[in-house]
């Protein structure tokens, strides 16, 4: 396939279009129009990015697992566990230097996310549990345990703040939106590219896809199918954990029970919407984040007397229209959801 798949092209054009409009609004008389400001103001773009980051990471997590043939509906739970772990780590290292403590907490989030991934792998590979059930177990378990263990008196002192990138952050409009962000945001955007290259252009990616599409053939080629699947679910868990870390250590600065609030499920939707490709997922997450931003812009600007519930339906309705109209049929990896037995082995 060419470097830019169809979904990737759509996604990237969407992002470029939004930035172009924002530049026009900021730098030309177009900005005097109230509606143009609502639709393409810098505040809307910033909000879009913030809302999209955890969704992108969640979707990447799903892509890694599912490309290797393991369904991951447990993203929500892995995210929550990662968020909680990051919070515990942060609140118990408050007396460390701020950045050290934050970075340490991110690592803990990654670790716990990875462990959740491992658990998902164990249940669905070693114990042959149906992968949808396994994912559900992870969601419920994470929700229950994090709420039960959450010490509500604990305080996480400080969170990641924006790091402007020299020169680039000076560019009007694009600078403040793209190049003046906290570290996990940069990392997440970078990871989209990394995962894209890893899946489509490396030996590891080739093997992952082989295991997800034709495990039997991969096995004959000497690839250890289940090892690849373990590896991918763990990596996927880590990415979901990073999404949790983003929520606690970068977006909010505090944990609270159920704080993922369905983002794992929306990530799942973004993954399918993006046809199991990283750039597709980025596009889907951006679209979703943008409609959320619009909804907020409408409410802030007070430009409409439509009851706010209908304004709030925007992200969800747009997603439904988009999946039915734009995307059409998507295709999951062929061997998804099926446990794999080596010949004759247990």
């Amino acid at each position, binding site marked *: 396939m060419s470097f830019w798949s169809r979904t990737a092209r759509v996604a990237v054009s969407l992002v470029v279009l939004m930035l172009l409009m924002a530049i026009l609004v900021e730098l030309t008389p177009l900005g005097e129009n109230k509606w143009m400001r609502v639709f393409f103001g810098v*505040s809307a773009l910033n*909000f879009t990015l*913030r809302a999209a980051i955890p969704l992108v990471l969640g979707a990447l997590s799903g892509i890694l697992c599912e490309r290797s043939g393991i369904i991951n509906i447990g993203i929500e739970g892995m995210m929550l566990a990662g968020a909680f772990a990051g919070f515990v780590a942060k609140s118990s290292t408050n007396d460390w230097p701020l950045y050290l403590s934050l970075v340490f907490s991110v690592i803990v989030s990654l670790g716990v996310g990875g462990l959740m991934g491992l658990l998902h792998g164990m249940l669905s590979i070693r114990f042959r549990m149906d992968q949808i059930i396994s994912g559900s177990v992870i969601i419920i378990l994470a929700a229950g345990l994090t709420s039960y263990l959450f010490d509500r008196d604990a*305080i996480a002192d400080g969170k990641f703040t924006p790091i402007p990138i020299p020169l680039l952050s000076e560019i009007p409009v694009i600078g403040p939106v793209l190049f003046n962000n906290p570290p996990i945001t940069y990392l997440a955007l970078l990871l989209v590219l990394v995962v894209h290259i890893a899946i489509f252009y490396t030996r590891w990616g080739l093997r992952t896809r082989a295991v997800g599409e034709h495990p039997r053939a991969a096995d004959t080629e000497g690839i250890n199918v289940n090892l690849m699947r373990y590896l991918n679910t763990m990596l996927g868990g880590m990415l979901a954990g990073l999404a949790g870390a983003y929520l606690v250590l970068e*977006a909010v600065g*505090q944990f609270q029970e159920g704080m993922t609030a369905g983002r794992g499920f929306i990530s799942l939707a973004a993954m399918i919407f993006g046809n199991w490709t990283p750039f597709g997922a980025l596009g889907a997450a951006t679209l979703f984040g943008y409609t959320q931003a619009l909804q*907020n812009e409408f*409410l802030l600007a007070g430009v409409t007397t439509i009851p706010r519930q209908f304004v709030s339906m925007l992200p969800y309705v747009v997603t439904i229209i988009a999946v039915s109209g734009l995307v059409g049929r998507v295709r999951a990896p062929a061997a998804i959801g099926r446990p794999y037995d080596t010949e004759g082995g247990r």
Partner: protein
Amino acid sequence: MNPQKSWSSLIWLVSTFCLLAFTSLSAATLKVGLVTDVGRVNDRSFNQSAWEGVQEAKKQLGLNDRHVKYIETQDAKDYADNLAQFIDAEYNVIVTVGFALGDATVKAAKENPDTLFIGVDQFQGEAIPNLAGLIFHEDQSGFLAGVLAAGMSKSGTIAAVLGTDLIPPVVAFNEGYISGAKSVNPKIKVLSTYHPGELSQAFVDPEWGAATAKQAIDQGADVIFGAGGLTGNGALQEVATQSGVYCIGVDSDQWNTVPAARPCLISSAMKLITPAVADLISKAQSGSFKGGNVFGAAGLAPFHDFENDIPKPLKDLLVATKAGLDSGIIKTGYGN
């Protein structure tokens, strides 16, 4: 299941005996129970304030630890059942927290005239002798916050990030805030927005609070009022990481409840649930408990580190406004 069952019932029997022994020993003291709205007793928000009020009363009156309990509601359909747990155990005072428990509390109070009920944030349409509805003039508190915000704003744009318009106290805060700000600067732009989701999400979405606060800052707001449980707290914490922007908290003095907000927190629009609950429980003990609506204190919290940043004329204006609100000369424009 079977061995489990007999084992459990044995323990049940033994413990019932123990319980009986205890109750007969201390039958005279007050038993206080609290039912939360869907939420926790340590939610850094109104449930916590109410529970702290109960704790304070426990200390003041020397109540037995065993007789002061709470149940955290998991599902809005369970309000009545959770109240019944306390009524069955013959608790004398039951505190129910939050607007949403209003109906269930009124019903229980009518059915159990010997039990005293305290309904936090529950306006009483008709007075029931054994039910005190603890309410606050949130609009006045919000009005003062609006005066402060407008007085401190240099950009002429201020914002409010709010829990939900499904709950009247939050609307009262906002309406008061807007008219307070306009009373200082009629041309001020107030960006105020309620959480777009359902009730179950509205107060527990700090991520939305933070992103919305940032959005308002991007649009030029330089004072942000965060009012809505954890959602509002998220807004405060976001503002704290931005330079040149002030924030105002809500409910209690958030200098203490959200330390992370200290870099921007110039004050909080308070409704003091804790002392009011403690006071009502004391009244229950002393026999001077009266039903109907009881107003708790509302007003601005201290300025703390920003004492010197707030100009003297503004402070004077706040004092005068407070007096005007108390005497009824100044109207907030909310209600009536």
